[in-house]
């Protein structure tokens, strides 16, 4: 029997991997992937906790909703990255520092 703790563990591992990717990678696409991983960790939590919801399949509904939202934001983010690349000829976030004093 797979209980909640196992879901949580997988979710934490996913979240931590996403976080690590975000803070360590020098590529905006990779960071975006990290974000997606963290988002998926959160969606996994949502589905897992849905078991305890009084309304049936409420968690799954939210998960679906979030996945759609994530797809939308990812599209926007990719568009931004594309624009950034056009402007700076790089997508390394460390190099994009024109607002620095």
């Amino acid at each position: 029997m797979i209980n909640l703790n196992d879901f949580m563990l997988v979710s934490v591992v996913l979240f931590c991997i996403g976080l690590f990717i975000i803070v360590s990678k020098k590529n905006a696409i990779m960071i975006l992937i990290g974000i997606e991983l963290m988002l998926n960790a959160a969606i996994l939590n949502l589905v897992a906790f849905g078991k305890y919801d009084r309304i049936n399949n409420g968690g799954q509904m939210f998960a679906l909703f979030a996945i759609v939202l994530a797809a939308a934001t990812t599209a926007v983010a990719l568009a931004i990255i594309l624009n950034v690349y056009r402007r700076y000829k790089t997508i390394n976030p460390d190099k994009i520092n024109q607002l620095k004093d």
Partner: protein
Amino acid sequence: MNPTLPYNDAQTVTLAIIAVVLPFAAFVVNFLLLGKSKASGWVSTLAILASKVLAANVFFKVWDNHTIHAQQVWFTIGATKVQAGILLNNLSVLMLLLVSVIALPVHIYSTAYMKDDEGYSRYFRYLSLFCFSMLALVVVDNLILLYAFWEVVGFSSYLLIGFWFTRESAIMANKKAFIMNRIGDIGLLIAILILFVQYRTFDIEQIFGNKGSIVNSVITNGQWISRLGSVPALWQYIAVGGIFLAVAAKSAQFPLHTWLPDAMEGPTSVSALIHAATMVAAGVFLLGRFYPMFNGTELTILAIIGCFTAFMAATIALTQNDLKRILAYSTISQLGFMVMAMGVGAYSSSLFHLATHAFFKCLLFLVAGIVIHQMKHIKDDNNLDIDPQNILHMGGLRKKLPLTFIAALIGGLALVGLPLTSGYLSKDGILIQAFDWSDGKADILKLVPYVALFTSWLTAFYVARLIVKVFFGDFRLQKMNPQIHIHMGDGGWQYKVPLVFLAICCLFPVFSYSPVFYEDAWLNKGFAKVNFLARENMYHYIIPVLVNVLSVVVMYGAYVVYVKRNSWSFPQTGLLFRISFNEWYIDTFYNRVIVRFVMWLSYASYWFDRKVIDGLVNLVEKIGIALAGIAAWFDKHIVDGFLHLIADIVHGIGGFARRFQGGKIQYYLYSMLLVLVTVFILKLIWT
């Protein structure tokens, strides 16, 4: 002018003023217009010539006639009106004439004598100023003006004595003359102030005149009583002492006489003027003006000092070798005679002697000037290293300078006082009256006329020595240096005319129609105070004979000794010789004691100033600097430090905070993570 004066008198006063102001005008013209032009000499000479003519005019109008006194208000202080004006009485017109008459030949002589000097026009500027100050001094009627011109006389003599100001000795001499005269000036100032306090006026006529305040004031019971009040008699003594100081300084009386021999550093023509009519005569003139002030005892002191000065200076003159120095000491000696004459009451004889002395001393100095000039030419032509004033180098000049020799002879005989000269009339008058005066006096005072008598023999000796050494015998310089090239002569008319004029004035007819009896001199009759004119005792016959016979003997003795040197000579090593040669050690004494004391005092003050006063100032300064240093340190380290601390804290915080805003997105994430983790850890710990 004073409107109450009759027309004639007003005219006379105007003439006198013009006579006085003309030399000043010459001074101004020379100073402002002529610069270094040679015309300045003739401007000054013409001015003094015109002065002389006017002075003679004034003299004949006033002499033995009546006193003219013109004045107007000069300024008012409180209730005191100070009047300034002109007082023309016998004394002042005599001096006026004398000064201008003596100054004229000196001016003419100077135009030739100073011809090659670089300071030619400067010389005439000073000379005109000098004549002006002296002429003004004798006619003013006011003690303040008198004092002012007294100072100007001193100042212009200072300029002239130090005329060759590049010579160290001339600077020393004029400094000395000036300082000595300052001592006298202080005395005169004190006397004037005391007189003002006592009589409430500066008017000479009101104080010293026939109906003046002095006549009406007496000293009784230690009080000096005048019409305006009384003060302790001590003040009268101080005033008289001050006047005496002034007289002693200007007329070179002991103990303030030492400046006069040193004043020889000026040009010889200036010496002639100083010694004859201007500078030294001012002292005797002052004595004449202030004469009523002196009482019996004070006059006796005056007589003793004059007599001592005469004797001392004569003994010094015996052994000096410098031509001008001998003449200088003879001047001091003759001035001693004048002061003594004032002291014994021979008022008119004293002024008479002043007048005759002016002529023959001026003559002798002009002679000396010619001789020195010639010696200097010889020195310059042959590159000799000699002192042109030393009489030991001279000798036998009578053939080379015949006119000069005759002039020197006449002047010398007048100085000795042989009959037919003017000196005889005045000097014997003084001696006779000194003997008259000593009758019935204490024994010690009887010595005074005898010392004076002895002094006149000494005079005969040093005059004979001077003339013999300069004009007789062989020319010693030529004897020592046989190869030298000599051409000398009496010089041009600018030299000859003054000599002839002055030589004529040294003879008796100028002053009296009788060559033998001084009582007949017109000058003696001009002064009402004379009461010795009657031939009341045998002194009047014995003294002149005694003086002259012995003088002739002494002069012949000197002639024998110095011309025929193989007979016998004087010892040059004895104590008396050394005292005389070193001028009684008076200068040495002054240098050793007074000058050294003053120098010591000034060094001590200097030290005090440097060490104590400057030290105090420096200490205050150091304290100030130290305090300022502390304040600066406090400001820098505490006040600034506090501000810097705040700034550093803010800066540090800012620096710390901005590290998070490094522009690197992932750092933001790191920090967010850090905060979250920290919050969770803290939460874990606390729960």
